[in-house]
């Protein structure tokens, strides 16, 4: 039952995604709070924190290793 519900929710998102949102209705998406990526220097700081203290670095297209020899 739970898996069906999850599938339904995913499907609802997918169907909704098919309807294009015109550019003049994307003002909210342009707000810096809505950015999916951190500001680059903050992203580096955060990535290095986790990469060098957890054994699960890399794999997501970002550099792993390259310093401190700890990866």
């Amino acid at each position, binding site marked *: 039952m739970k898996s069906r519900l999850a599938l339904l929710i995913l499907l609802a*998102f997918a169907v*909704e*995604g098919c309807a*294009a*949102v*015109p*550019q003049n*209705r*994307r*003002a*909210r*998406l342009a*707000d*810096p*709070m*809505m*950015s*999916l990526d951190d*500001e*680059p*220097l*903050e992203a*580096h*700081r955060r990535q*290095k*924190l*986790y990469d*060098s*203290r*957890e*054994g*699960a*670095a*890399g*794999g*997501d*297209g*970002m*550099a*792993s*290793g*390259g*310093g*401190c*020899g*700890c*990866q």
Partner: protein
Amino acid sequence: MRAWPFFVLVLVAYVAPSRAFGDDPSSVIVDSDVLGHDTMRPQVATVTTRLSAYSQYGTGYQSKSGPLLGPGSERLTVLQPQAEVVITQGNRLTHRIWIPIDIITAASPNSWQPAVDVMSGASRKTEAGSLQWTTTYKADASSQVSATQGLHLENPFRSWNAGLGVQHAFADQNTVFSAGFAGILDWFDRFYVTGARNGRTQRSSTMGSVGLTQVLTPTTIVNVNYGLTVQVGELGNTWNAVPLASGERGPELLPSERIRHAMVGRMAQFLPWNGAVRLHYRLYADDWGILAHSIEGRLMQRLTPRLYIGALYRFHTQTGPSFFTTRAPVDAPLRVADSDLAPLDSHTIGAKLVGDARVNGMAQSLHYEVGYDRYFRTNDLRMDIVTCSIGLRF
């Protein structure tokens, strides 16, 4: 007679502009007067600096700063200044030059007397720096390609990297596809577990990723990303210790290859009360046997048009590789005692304040950010992080 004043007015109105724009060819308005010159002259778009300070406490069996069979201290401090300059060349080319520096003091390498420091033989501090240059070419309104290259310098460690990325938008920019490929070559000193140098060694990392970003509603955006990293060579720092059943310390013995997979899903939702929530989930698996889940939520609230605050919580859980141990048999073919590779849970809580201010002068605005994070793990590691950033937008 009544028509004369009107006739003169019409004549003046007609002649005046014709004298202004007609007689002097240089005064004719062209597109570039309105839209700006499409010149290749480099122009600085932004300059950003960030300073972060880390203070870490804890213990781990790989550290030599403690009892022979551990656990030893993982006390560490890091001061991390970073600088970034973004330069535009015309309407299509953008360069990003980024210089991060780490100034590190660590308990384990400093525990030897005289200081036989794996990271710096000359002092108890390690200064590490990188230079990264990324150039992005915008082919048209929907497509861009970027190339990056960089160099990392550390006392016994050199690293080079290069990569390519492409991005294409579909459906009136509602859908963005991205893909990237990169390689890193690390070349560094090998050490005996006693701290003496043992020549040089190397490793390579090759990475690829694909991603898709989709605008779902005027207030919702999602992204999924898959990445693969293949590493070959010496995959440890050769310095970490492993307590042995014989009562001695031995070196780590690790496989010479590691294949890592990661799948990431992200979502941002604007909230009706001028706030936003961001969710991030990451699934990681590698052929050493580590399986990890990370989930992160951020809540942000705009206080004024130029100021917002944010709060963060992240939870991470991971299994360890089958050869993780805190007391290894002497003849074990593979062994590691690094607390970073142990089965563990970690938590991060954080808060930040972000704002923009108008400035009078050559810059358009001043961007500033102040943040604090507390990171702690279930296997005795905790860290306080303070970060602040200032940037100029030209």
